Structure formats: structure tokens, C-alpha cells
């Protein structure tokens, strides 16, 4: 009886529940709809956090890591056709190498027919930095290429070889060749840390607030800053947007008594990236290394900061800067938060490493990065310098007006065409010059025309002539336009959408660009020549920037 009653009660409850669901089916349908939308959004758009720790050991690296030329699997590296059309005689071979383990490498001349002659061997010590090597050898007839070969191919060392060059020498025999001066190759070292704060156990959340700037004030130890390393945790959903954070460097004035800080002068350098594109600066240890160029004055205070004004930040989309809460962890600086033009000093210090730049010096003269000064014999030599298309090119400038920057897309130095904007080079050849050749090409026809001047005393400047050359501008060129605004078509959002249309058409546009290729006769015994690159102020076109590509300076030397 009791069981029957219980069953009846249960049936009643189930019936009531079913009736309720039937009566409120729209509410339940709406609830199911909400659940579906929530699940989709949660999976696709909810916050994902990438911390320095979760990205350690190269787990988040997006940039292609350079591949070694010699490995355990590939014990041979051929440089084909290096000697094609070269006459028999004495030659100098220069190249750069590094290895992660101790290795012995054999150097051989190689012919397609299969014959080989060993011309040298070298022992490599483990190193993170490339080192220059030089080998003098006699090239007999019938050889085409060069072969680098691991002596013991079972060893696990990875050997990197780059910048392989040969020069024919004016030497009749080996003793004449060996008596020549060693080739000088300029190398700017950017791995030296000038100042740092390495505590990173605390997260600064200032960038969670919209239109905020958070950064670290530091005291300059060196004249040049080449990069800054920071530890940043990224909070973002699947679609964080393409709006960009701006990393900038500015000079500040610090009043120790009042404990106040104020910004001075223009932005010295800035770098823009989104919450996604920041990954290209990721390092193996999970931190970020941002290239940053600025000429600093020793002991002055500078502010390196991240600005989120252009980004839609919120609970799911913001950056956390890591550091230490202990204000004494870096005694010569402090954390500064900027909100609505008000700067306030906060407790603690950000994690940071400021990298300087150490140039190669010869007779106290700075040698540009990658510049070669080599002797051929019989009193002849050659100086050569060419831009590499890397950020390091900026470090070769002797001076630059504010706003001068490096475009990752175009791989050139560019500057805004306003006021007296210019950038210059000092070319030291160490030995007296015979004749100098300067060559370069205007980056794009739509940009402001270029004016290149040279001087041997920095007082008398002479303009270099230029001609025009038709060049095919690929539609992709526009698509590669630098996000920081190196386009001449208004806002970057618009220019990108326009070029996205262009890329689907096969149309190519021929445009006339300026070409510089001039020989300069220097005064007797001159060893230094100055080049100034600016825009043509008579050019009334709408271009907002100017830039040159393929800059090359060569000079015959009297040695």
C-alpha cells in the first residue's frame, strides 16, 4: 500500500515536472541557448594566460630558430660556385662561425668532378657569439666550390657558418700573402647588459586599466641602448584584436627631494606590437627582448614603458609586467605609472635588462657593423660596408632625428619627413682612401624623395646626384607596411584593408625610384667620410616618410 502510494507520488512529481517544462518550454529553450553561447564563447574567447614560466625552454617561440650548417646528421656544408670564373692565384677566405660544442672542422676546395683539396682546419670552442675566421690559400685551376666538413661526424655539435667571402690577393707567393694585414671586420656587440633588475616574483597589474602607461625609470650607464628585456605575462582571449601596445623610451627628470618625476622632450624610440605579434620578441627563457635604439647620456634618467592607450583592455585582455615589490632591488630607478598625463611613482621595480652597444674600434675610430677593411697586397686595399636589413643597422648611425626607426616589414631605416629630419653615418676607413663609391635606392616612389650629402670635414656638404629607375612595386609591398605607421596612406587600418584587396589582383605597378650611385674623389689622406641622408624639402608629394634601401659604401684604400 505504502509502496503504491510512494510510486503514485513519484509519478505525480514527474508528471508535474514534465508539465512545468512543457509550460515553460520557451524559458528552457532560452536557457539552452544561453548555455550554448556561453560554451562557444568560453572555448573560443575566454582568457588564456601565457606566463614567463609556461613559456620557458622555448615553448612559445614563434620565430624560426636559425639552422646549423653542420650537425650530427649533416657533416658536410658545400658553398657551391664560390670560385666560378675565378682565376688561379692566392685568395683570402673570410667567414663567421660558432658552435655549441667543441668541434674540429676541415676546410676543402671542391670540384663537381669530385676532387677535393684540404686548405685548412680549425678547432671550434663552444660559443654563443659568431667569430670571424680568415684563411689564406692558393686556388689551383678546376675548383668550383668550398666544403666545410666535420672531422668526426659522430659528434653532436651544431656548427653555424655565415658570411663566406673570398678576395683575390696581389701576392706572388704564400709568404707575401701571409705578410698582409688581417682583415678587419666591424662587429657591434649588443649582448652586454648595462643595467638590470632581475627580481620577477611580483606582477604589476597597471596595464589592466585602460589608457595607462606602466614602466621603469633607470639611470643610463652607456651612451647607446640597443635592447631591453622584460618579463611579461599575457592575458588574452582567442581574438585579442590587432590594436597595439607601444613600448617607448623617453628621458625623464627625477626630483629626489620631492620624489617626483616628469617627462622631458620627445619620445626617443618606440615600438608597437599587439598581444599576438609580441611573440616575435619571445626568448628561449620565456622573457621578451625588444630592440630599442636610443642615444643616451650617462647618469641621466630614462623611462622605458608600455602604453595600452590604443588597446581595448579588460578582464580577459591585458599584460602583466613582472618585477619585484622591493624598491631597493634596483636602487637607481623605480616603477612609474602614467594615467591621464599624471605620473606617479609606485613601490618596486620591474624586471628589466638594458643592453648597450659595444662597437669595434680601430685606432679609436668606430668601425660600422659588418664593415670590412682588407689588404690585397702591393699597397692596395678595400673598404666595404652594406646595410644588413636588420635592426642592428640603426646602431651604425652616428646621429638620427627623433622618430627615426627601423621597419621590420621593409627591413630599412626610415624617418618621418618633417622639420630637418635626417640620419647620418660616419665611415672610418682607417687607411687613406683612393676613391669612394656610394650607392643606395629610394625605398618607394610614393615616399618623399631623398637627398644624400657627403662631407669630409662636416662643414662643406656636397649633394650626391641621383637618377631614376623604373622598379616593379609588388602589391605585397603595401601589405607589408609597418604597423607603426610607415605607410603614406593615412591610418594603418585603412591601408591594410586596401592592400588586402590589391593582393588578389595580379596587377603590378611600375614606379620610378631614385637611385644613387656616385663616385667621390676624397682629399688626400682622408680617412673619414660623413654621409647625411635627408628628404628633399622641395618635393611636394604627400609622402610622410623617407627611407633608402641597399645602402652600400666602398672605397679603394692605400695601405
Amino acid at each position, binding site marked *: 500500500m505504502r509502496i503504491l502510494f510512494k510510486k503514485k507520488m513519484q509519478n505525480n512529481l514527474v508528471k508535474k515536472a514534465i508539465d*512545468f517544462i512543457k*509550460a*515553460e518550454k*520557451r*524559458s528552457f*529553450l*532560452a*536557457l539552452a*541557448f*544561453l548555455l550554448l*553561447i*556561453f560554451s562557444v*564563447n568560453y572555448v573560443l*574567447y*575566454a582568457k588564456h594566460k601565457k606566463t614567463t614560466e609556461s613559456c620557458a625552454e622555448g615553448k612559445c617561440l614563434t620565430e624560426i630558430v636559425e639552422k646549423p650548417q653542420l650537425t650530427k646528421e649533416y657533416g658536410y656544408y658545400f658553398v657551391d660556385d664560390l670560385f666560378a670564373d675565378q682565376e688561379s692565384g692566392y685568395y683570402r677566405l673570410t667567414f663567421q662561425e660558432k658552435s655549441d660544442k667543441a668541434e674540429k672542422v676541415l676546410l676543402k676546395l671542391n670540384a663537381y668532378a669530385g676532387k677535393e683539396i684540404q686548405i685548412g682546419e680549425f678547432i671550434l670552442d663552444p660559443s654563443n657569439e659568431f667569430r670571424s675566421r680568415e684563411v689564406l690559400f692558393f686556388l689551383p685551376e678546376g675548383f668550383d666550390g668550398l666544403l666545410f666538413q666535420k672531422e668526426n661526424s659522430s659528434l653532436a655539435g651544431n656548427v653555424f657558418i655565415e658570411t663566406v667571402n673570398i678576395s683575390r690577393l696581389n701576392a706572388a707567393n704564400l709568404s707575401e700573402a701571409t705578410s698582409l694585414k688581417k682583415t678587419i671586420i666591424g662587429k657591434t656587440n649588443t649582448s652586454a647588459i648595462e643595467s638590470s633588475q632581475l627580481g620577477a616574483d611580483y606582477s604589476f597589474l597597471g596595464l589592466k586599466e585602460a589608457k595607462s602607461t606602466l614602466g621603469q625609470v633607470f639611470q643610463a650607464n652607456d651612451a647607446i641602448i640597443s635592447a631591453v628585456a622584460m618579463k611579461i605575462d599575457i592575458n588574452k582571449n582567442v581574438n585579442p584584436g590587432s590594436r597595439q601596445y607601444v613600448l617607448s623610451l623617453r628621458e625623464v627628470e627625477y626630483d629626489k627631494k620631492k620624489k617626483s618625476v616628469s617627462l622631458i622632450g620627445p619620445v626617443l624610440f618606440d615600438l608597437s606590437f599587439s598581444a599576438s605579434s609580441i611573440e616575435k620578441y619571445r626568448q628561449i627563457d620565456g622573457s621578451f627582448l625588444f630592440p630599442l635604439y636610443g642615444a643616451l647620456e650617462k647618469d641621466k634618467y630614462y623611462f622605458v614603458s608600455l602604453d595600452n592607450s590604443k588597446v581595448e583592455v*579588460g*578582464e*580577459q585582455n591585458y599584460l602583466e609586467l613582472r618585477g619585484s615589490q622591493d624598491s631597493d632591488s634596483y636602487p637607481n630607478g623605480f616603477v612609474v605609472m602614467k594615467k591621464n598625463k599624471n605620473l606617479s611613482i609606485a613601490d618596486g621595480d620591474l624586471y628589466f635588462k638594458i643592453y648597450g652597444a659595444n662597437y669595434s674600434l680601430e685606432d679609436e675610430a668606430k668601425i660600422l657593423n659588418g664593415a670590412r677593411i682588407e689588404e690585397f697586397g702591393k699597397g692596395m686595399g678595400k673598404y666595404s660596408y652594406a646595410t644588413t636589413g636588420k635592426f642592428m643597422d640603426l646602431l651604425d648611425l652616428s646621429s638620427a632625428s627623433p622618430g627615426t626607426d627601423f621597419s621590420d616589414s621593409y627591413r630599412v631605416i626610415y624617418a618621418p619627413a618633417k622639420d630637418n629630419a635626417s640620419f647620418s653615418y660616419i665611415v672610418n676607413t682607417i687607411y687613406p682612401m683612393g676613391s669612394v663609391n656610394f650607392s643606395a635606392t629610394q625605398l618607394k616612389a610614393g615616399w618623399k624623395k631623398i637627398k644624400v650629402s657627403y662631407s669630409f670635414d662636416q662643414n662643406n656638404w656636397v649633394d650626391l646626384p641621383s637618377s631614376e629607375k623604373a622598379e616593379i612595386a609588388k602589391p605585397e609591398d603595401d601589405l607589408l607596411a609597418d604597423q607603426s605607421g610607415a605607410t603614406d596612406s593615412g591610418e594603418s587600418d585603412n591601408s591594410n584593408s586596401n592592400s588586402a584587396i590589391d593582393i588578389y589582383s595580379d596587377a603590378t605597378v611600375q614606379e620610378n625610384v631614385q637611385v644613387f650611385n656616385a663616385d667621390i674623389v676624397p682629399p688626400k689622406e682622408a680617412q673619414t667620410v660623413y654621409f647625411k641622408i635627408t628628404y628633399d624639402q622641395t618635393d611636394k608629394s604627400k609622402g610622410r616618410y623617407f627611407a633608402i634601401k641597399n645602402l652600400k659604401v666602398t672605397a679603394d684604400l692605400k695601405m
Partner: protein
Amino acid sequence: MFREFFEKSLIGKILEVVVLFAAIVMARYFQWEIANTVFFVLFVLLLLHPIPSRFAAFGVVFLLVVTAVLFLVKRNNWADICSIWAYYLMFFTAMLSFSQLQNDENGATIAKDK
């Protein structure tokens, strides 16, 4: 539309309020903009209390006209947003039409049986 609400049982009313509240909380959680939040809540409201599809269709036509006007006055960003809303509303109009059609068919079957 709202007469139905007042005719519901207390639990039914509470359930509807909970659904709408959940929609607002969800929009806040995902940080949707105010306009999108309003649109989403309206969408849920229409699920709870459907209106004749012709009203929604009128909304679509209105939004499309506004989109064209915005393009003419070169307010491209607003025109984009407006066209997206028109698209959403069009989707909803289609859903309302299907549901309405089914109701009409059911009504017709019941009438036939009688």
C-alpha cells in the same frame, strides 16, 4: 507580449527573470559592448516572448536602410555595425517565421481534426 508574462506561474516568472539576468551576467563576463549586450538581451527576450516575424522583418529593412544612409554619409564603422545587426535580426526573423509557420500548421491540423 508581456500579458503572457503576468499570466505565468510565480516559478515561471522567476525562471524568465533568471534567464534574462543570466544573459546580462554573461554579456558582462565576456565584456561585450553595451550595444551588443542590449541586442543579445533583446534576442533572448524575443525567444521568451516571440513577436510576429513581420515586426522583426521590418526591423531588418529599417537597419538595412540605415546602413545605406550611414555609408552615404561616410560613417563606415557605424554602417558596418548596423549591417551586422541587420544580419543577426534577419537570422532571427527566419527563426520566428519557421516557428510561426509550424504554429499555423499545428493550428490548422487541430481545426481540421475538430
